[in-house]
């Protein structure tokens, strides 16, 4: 609007382009916000910026293969019709056109890659240059070189390149040459102009040297004269250590040549493959320079390689034996190689001849080739050792004189490993035990050897004709076959029958026949099988079995011989007759009993064993493992014979108690069919009275004293005194019994001999008892009454007493009896839950002393007849019980022993009731 208005005014100056005049009623367009601005590519497609750091544009539809309308496989063609020409799509099929253009990610146009570009950038060298810049006396000088140096190549270079020249090549027409000639030895300095090609190569080019016809090489590059002025104060020709060499190690050269001048260029002639081939980085060589105090140094810039050191001890050089490498100088200098050459030219003023020349480079000449050698390989026709060529091969072998003299040689597939090994001349496998024989005892081995020899002799005696017949393949007669097999099995058969290889274990008769067969086969009998075969069998069956036996024998042999070398001898014998027994056992129960009786606790009653806790247990208890390097857990075990009597002799059984106990029972329960075995818990009142005279005496005396001393608990006191009173008669009684049966060994001894397995069925017994232990008041009552009935008495009498109580009006369930039986076997009973006031009553009733006890027993015996009836009723349960008892027989004798002790100690405790004089009590 402003422009229009200013048209008239000429002196107005307008800047910029005028805006489009607004239409009437049109609103001013809002500027497009930044997020809505779009970018389009050359084809008008939108391009979305993809993110600040990921760069570039998104591809496809939000980076998917889909479109706005969803994914449609645009190129879908039914494969039914066009099955044949299904094209394999490459990545290019999914690219945009611009990707394939010159600057795309996959340019289709052929461009010069970096490798073929004129100035191939040597990255390592570039880096070396940078490092050199840093390391150089004035850091950063190379930066100036970059500044000064031409950034672009000259026109001459460009022209040469256009003409096909490459950097590093010489200029001139391409020549026919040996390729290796092109690269001059970088170590050889070339000064001045290059020799004319004809002169330098004519002599070397031998006429018979093979050369490809159509291969030409670019001419050798000529080293220009180095005309760099000396601007530093280094020695003449000195050049600082080239980082490219120092850092990237020139392996071929032993000497870091600092004086090569233009060697940099020469080594680059062919792009210097050595450098570009990922060389190991790192500084090699010694320090940079020689210390002032160092007298001399052969080559201060030498790289230190292991090859420079002597690896073998050599003889001292002839001469002075007195000095070795520490020889004084005059001796040493003598040994300098005579190869010293003299400088013949004039020596400039101020210069002197070097006293020491640099170590000459050792040149390894290439291997001299035969004159007619041509570096082209011909494929000569080779005779393939196959079936069709066997004649030819044989002819060849014959000619070489290596033919096998054995015409009956089997094909190589028929050989087994051992035979092949023999043919190949390999040594036998060195297994730990190559033969089964080693496992046998000396005697067995000898016997085997004898039989083997016998069989061999028989073999030798066989007529040759038979042998020849064997080679023929025809249905052999059994005799023949046997012989054949014998031949096959050879000496190794000797082992066959001797071991536990039982192929026909299922059929013992057959196995027996087989064993016989093998045995006789070993001994070289011919008609073996005929004899051993079952005469009832048919011909066909016999034939079959015979074959079977042969196969079995064969199988055993082969596996035996090949496998024996693969196995090692077992570290521990798994002898079934042995059983692991704790090394230490608690023993001498008898001694301990007496010790306990004498109250001599301490060393006599204590057993100490080495015990290994589990590692995890130690960890859980936060305790250091006492045996960190032992794998034993628990008590250390030793192997013993399973059925050895000695396993049980460690725990001496007091035989007397057993017999005594049983006797007692027999006496007591005449009406009962089976004598009841007392358990450990049978602390019967009669047993109690049996004690050795000393303790008896002591207890007697004590009890008397106690009675006088203080008022004890009445019940126990009564009991105690009563016991002591009736002692003598009873003891006499016991003694009689003792004499009768003392000759019988304990049951365990028999078990050790005749019974094999351990009894582990106690759990089932317990289950029964568990079942019965459901609380029921009546049961409990009966239980308690019974307990009270016989004070301090055994649980073996429990049954009787229980029945006794039933008489007194309380109904006794069969279950309770079971329960009692079960508990008596296993340990301290659980106390009854509810003992009513009856307890006291019974206490008074049944605690009267010994005289009443006698009566009580009579009553009990009377009741036993009733009990018998009951037993019949509960036959089944009773049966169970008996079983249980049988199971626990093993434990029984043990229990007896301890019950024996309890008796005696019981008597003690019973008699001397609560109040003992502290003097006696406190034994320290």
């Amino acid at each position, binding site marked *: 609007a402003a422009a229009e208005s200013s048209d008239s005014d000429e002196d107005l100056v307008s800047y910029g382009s005028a805006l489009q005049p607004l239409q009437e009623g049109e609103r001013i367009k809002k500027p497009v916000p930044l997020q809505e601005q779009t970018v389009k590519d050359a084809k008008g497609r939108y391009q979305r910026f993809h993110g600040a750091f990921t760069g570039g544009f998104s591809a496809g539809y939000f980076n998917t293969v889909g479109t706005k309308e969803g994914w449609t496989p645009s190129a879908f063609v039914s494969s039914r019709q066009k099955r044949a020409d299904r094209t394999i799509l490459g990545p290019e099929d999914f690219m945009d056109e611009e990707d394939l253009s010159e600057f795309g990610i996959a340019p289709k146009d052929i461009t010069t890659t970096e490798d073929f570009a004129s100035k191939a950038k040597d990255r390592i060298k570039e880096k070396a240059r940078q490092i050199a810049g840093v390391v150089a006396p004035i850091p950063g000088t190379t930066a100036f070189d970059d500044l000064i140096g031409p950034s672009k190549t000259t026109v001459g270079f460009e022209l040469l390149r256009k003409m096909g020249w490459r950097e590093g090549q010489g200029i001139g027409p391409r020549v026919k040459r040996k390729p290796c000639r092109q690269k001059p030895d970088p170590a050889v300095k070339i000064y001045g102009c290059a020799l004319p090609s004809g002169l330098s190569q004519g002599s070397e080019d031998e006429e018979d040297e093979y050369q490809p016809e159509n291969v030409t090489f670019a001419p050798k590059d000529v080293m220009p004269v180095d005309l760099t002025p000396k601007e530093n104060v280094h020695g003449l020709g000195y050049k600082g250590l080239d980082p490219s060499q120092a850092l990237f190690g020139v392996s071929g050269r032993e000497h870091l040549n600092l004086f090569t001048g233009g060697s940099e260029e020469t080594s680059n002639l062919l792009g210097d493959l050595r450098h570009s081939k990922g060389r190991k980085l790192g500084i090699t060589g010694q320090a940079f320079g020689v210390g002032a105090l160092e007298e001399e140094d052969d080559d201060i810039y030498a790289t230190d390689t292991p090859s420079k050191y002597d690896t073998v001890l050599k003889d001292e050089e002839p001469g002075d034996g007195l000095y070795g490498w520490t020889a004084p100088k005059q001796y040493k200098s003598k040994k300098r190689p005579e190869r010293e050459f003299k400088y013949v030219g004039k020596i400039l003023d101020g210069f002197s001849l070097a006293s020491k020349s640099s170590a000459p480079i050792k040149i390894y000449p290439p291997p001299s080739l035969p004159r007619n050698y041509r570096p082209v390989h011909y494929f000569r026709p080779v005779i393939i050792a196959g079936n069709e060529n066997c004649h030819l091969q044989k002819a060849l072998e014959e000619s070489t004189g290596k033919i096998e003299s054995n015409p009956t040689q089997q094909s190589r597939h028929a050989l087994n490993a051992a035979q092949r090994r023999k043919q190949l001349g390999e040594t036998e496998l060195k297994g730990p035990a190559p033969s089964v024989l080693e496992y046998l005892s000396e005697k067995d081995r000898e016997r085997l050897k004898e039989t083997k020899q016998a069989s061999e002799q028989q073999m030798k005696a066989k007529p040759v004709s038979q042998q020849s017949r064997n080679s023929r393949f025809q249905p052999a007669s059994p005799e023949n076959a046997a012989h054949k097999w014998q031949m096959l099995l050879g000496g190794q058969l000797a082992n066959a029958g001797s071991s536990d290889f039982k192929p026909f274990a299922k059929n013992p008769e057959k196995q027996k026949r087989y064993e016989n067969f093998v045995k006789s086969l070993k001994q070289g009998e011919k008609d073996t099988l005929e004899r051993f075969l079952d005469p009832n069998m048919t011909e066909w069956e016999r034939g079959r079995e015979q074959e079977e036996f042969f196969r079995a024998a064969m199988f055993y042999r082969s596996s035996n011989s090949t496998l024996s070398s693969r196995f090692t001898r077992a570290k521990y014998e798994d002898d079934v007759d042995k059983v692991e027994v704790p090394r230490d056992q608690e023993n001498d129960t008898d001694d301990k009993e007496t010790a306990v009786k004498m109250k001599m606790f301490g060393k006599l009653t204590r057993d100490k064993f080495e015990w290994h806790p589990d590692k995890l247990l130690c960890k859980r208890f936060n305790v250091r493992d006492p045996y960190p390097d032992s794998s034993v857990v628990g008590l250390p075990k030793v192997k013993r014979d399973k059925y050895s009597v000695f396993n049980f002799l460690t725990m001496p059984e007091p035989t007397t108690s057993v017999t005594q106990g049983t006797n007692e029972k027999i006496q007591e329960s005449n009406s009962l069919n089976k004598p009841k075995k007392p358990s450990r818990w049978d602390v019967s009142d009669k047993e109690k009275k049996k004690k050795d005279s000393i303790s008896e005496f002591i207890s007697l005396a004590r009890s008397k004293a106690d009675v006088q001393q203080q008022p004890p608990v009445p019940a126990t006191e009564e009991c105690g005194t009563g016991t002591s009173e009736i002692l003598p008669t009873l003891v006499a009684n016991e003694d009689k019994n003792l004499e009768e049966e003392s000759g019988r060994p304990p049951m365990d001894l028999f078990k050790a001999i005749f019974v094999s397995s351990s009894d582990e069925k106690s759990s089932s017994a317990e289950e029964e008892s568990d079942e019965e232990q459901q609380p029921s008041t009546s049961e409990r009552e009966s239980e308690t009454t019974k307990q009270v009935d016989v004070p301090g008495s055994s649980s073996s009498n429990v049954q009787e007493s229980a029945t006794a109580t039933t008489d007194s009006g309380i109904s006794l369930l069969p279950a309770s009896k079971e329960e009692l039986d079960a508990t008596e076997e296993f340990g301290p009973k659980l106390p009854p839950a509810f003992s009513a006031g009856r307890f006291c009553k019974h206490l008074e009733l049944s605690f009267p002393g010994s005289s009443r006890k006698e009566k009580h027993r009579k009553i009990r015996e009377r009741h036993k007849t009733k009990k018998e009836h009951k037993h019949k009723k509960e036959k089944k349960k009773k049966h169970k019980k008996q079983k249980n008892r049988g199971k626990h027989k093993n434990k029984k004798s043990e229990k007896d022993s*301890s019950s024996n002790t309890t008796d005696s100690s019981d008597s003690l405790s019973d008699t001397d009731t609560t109040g003992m004089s502290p003097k006696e009590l406190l034994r320290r």
Partner: protein
Amino acid sequence: MAFPRPRPARPELPRQRVQTLQCGQGAVRAARFNADGNYCLTCGSDKTLKLWNPHKGTALRTYQGHGYEVLDAAGSSDNSQICSGGADKSVALWDVTTGQVVRKYRGHAGKVNCVQFNEEGTVIVSGSIDSTVRCWDCRSRRPDPIQVLDEAKDGISSVKLSAYEILTGSVDGRVRRYDLRVGELCSDYIGSPITSVCFSKDGQCVLAASLDSTLRLLDKDTGELLGEYTGHRSTTYRLDCVLNEQDTHVGCASEDGHVYFWDLVEGSLALSLPVGQGVVQSLAFHPRLPCLLVATQGQVTLWREDTFQPEGDPD
């Protein structure tokens, strides 16, 4: 023989009944204090386990999950877990708060008579009438015990643990002490079937109750007899023995319905506590207070010293 002087201040013994818990779970097979003595566990023959505050007389929780009667229980020292063993041959590990069985360890061939936690509650040691002691791992999920101590010739009636020892009393009449630190098993022959064993608080002595109605105090290191305590009756049942909180007295349950206490040094009977009519089944002494827990005839009673005022909160 010179006697040590009687102590100036005689320790109190529990003589006064302050609480009676009617458990209602059949026979109470065991009553046990927890680690600090504030709570107690009762094991019933009706397959349940109950947690109580015995000082207040309140039942807190019932734990059900055993197949048969529960024979022993123990609480871990952090009070978070309970282990129990029962006649169902299994050892159960309970979570105290949820009341659920965390784990059940099966492997015993018989009733599990006694269970104990180690100090950290990482191992349960259980003794069974199958004559083995089994150490179960509570940390890992392995179902088999860490170690089985099968040296006993007969059932295990009692197991106690110290920081580095396992003390077992067996029916074969031996007290065995497995010392993990030294790697040694000490077996002391007592002769009579052992019903209960316990360590003294100082860890120097071992108290063993046996079925010959005798308690014996043995020196732990040498096995020598330090004291013998008789007067009670224990011939048939598995009854507990205890030491009081100061190691001055020795207590034992009896079949005649009393609990007996003897002076540890003198061996004289100090107290005969008439608890009830029936057999005193289980006994537990408070770890710090003169406070006794007695289980008899299906009920549990708590006994305190004479000077104790029931009104005042014990702890």
